[in-house]
């Protein structure tokens, strides 16, 4: 199977600190990979590097065919969907406005917004401002956006944080579904995860590098 993500001795320096300290990693297209590791191990930074949110300072890297050493990071971002710790998009906009904005930016049909909001069980929050949502609900907005966008690579930074048991099962279902449709999924997590029949690869990070794969 072809590699969707390939890193070779990748180093990321930010403000003089090595967030990623030389990591080599290959991730297959359509796979699910869980990144484990203690706080500060570099899980979020690795996801940000792959998502084009942090620049590669040294080493080599290719994400969805885009060479990280040669191309503008914006090109990588066109292939990835991001679900971070914090809220998605703008705090002062409502759920519907944020999703409409994002759809318009990427010329995605906004008619699907009510459908995905129903799927993530946020229909009753359609016109609520982002800042008035709970942490778990904000995550659901982020998931709704991923469902609308259907990116080639899903990068989920501790997606289970602040989510209840039902939400967790729901998210596992969505991730499994995305992988089945050919998307590559990378997520950081401290917990054991269950994606049904889908094969899951687990890698462990420490000190800004992958220590076991």
């Amino acid at each position, binding site marked *: 199977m072809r590699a969707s993500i390939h890193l070779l001795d990748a180093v990321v320096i930010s403000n003089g600190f090595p967030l990623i300290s030389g990591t080599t990693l290959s991730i297959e297209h359509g796979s699910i990979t869980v990144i484990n590791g203690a706080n500060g191990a570099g899980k979020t930074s690795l996801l*940000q590097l792959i*998502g*084009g*949110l942090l620049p590669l300072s040294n080493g080599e890297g290719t994400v969805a065919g885009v060479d990280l050493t040669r191309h*503008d*990071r*914006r*090109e990588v*971002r*066109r292939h*990835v*969907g*991001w679900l*971070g*710790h*914090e*809220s*998605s*998009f*703008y*705090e*002062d*906009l409502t759920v519907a*406005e944020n999703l409409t*904005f*994002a759809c*318009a*930016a*990427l010329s995605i049909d906004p008619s699907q917004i009510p459908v995905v909001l129903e799927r993530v069980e946020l229909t009753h929050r359609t016109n609520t*401002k982002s800042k008035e949502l709970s942490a778990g609900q904000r995550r659901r907005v*982020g998931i709704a*956006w991923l469902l609308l966008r259907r990116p080639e690579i899903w990068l989920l930074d501790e997606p289970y944080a602040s989510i209840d048991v039902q939400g967790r099962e729901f998210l596992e279902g969505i991730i499994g579904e995305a992988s089945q449709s050919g998307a590559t999924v990378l997520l950081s997590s401290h917990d054991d995860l269950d994606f049904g029949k889908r094969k899951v690869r687990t890698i462990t990070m420490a000190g800004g590098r992958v220590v076991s794969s």
Partner: protein
Amino acid sequence: MIHVAALVARKDLRIELRSRVLAWQVLPFGVMALLLCGLALGPNPAGRSHAGPGLFYIVVTLMALLMINRSQAIESSRGTKDSVATLGLDPAGVFLGKAAALTVEMWLASAVLLTGTVLFLHVDQARTLVAIPSIAASVAALSLAGTLYGALTSSQNSSLTLLPVLALPAFAPLLIAGERAYSAVVYGGELKVWWSLLVISLIAYSSVGVLLYGVMEES
């Protein structure tokens, strides 16, 4: 580019309409600053009207600093930054959109301040109305320049204090041109050179913003 610009401008204006930072924080500050200017000139009313156009522009400049910081703060939280970054918006469009929204907000603020200038500083009302095109142009130039300098200082702990140091020297010629044009309309004098300076500034800042905003966003 235009599509992204329209999208970003609409979004910024909608956020402003929701948060009402301009109405509840920036405008009261501007009106108070104008009153303070009047008090600082002393009780003699004669000097006030001649200083009116200059004081108006001083307060507009101070308000612009607040509005620029606000405009950048909308984009600065980690969650917003990351999620918006993955949209891969055209930076030239983002620049034009943010500058357009800031211009509209600054025009509204200037309208209130102009009323204050006529009321408190006794600048001729009819002539002030004639000066509106030059005021609109200088405020637009301030907004374009401010959007660029705001992006330079965004996402830094010291952005609040750094912005004035970087932006005020660039605002100086705009303030001069705006004030001279306003004064020329009210009290007579050369108007053409100030208009040419404003037009050149508008063209220069728009071009540089379109070309270089991406460099700042990327960093």
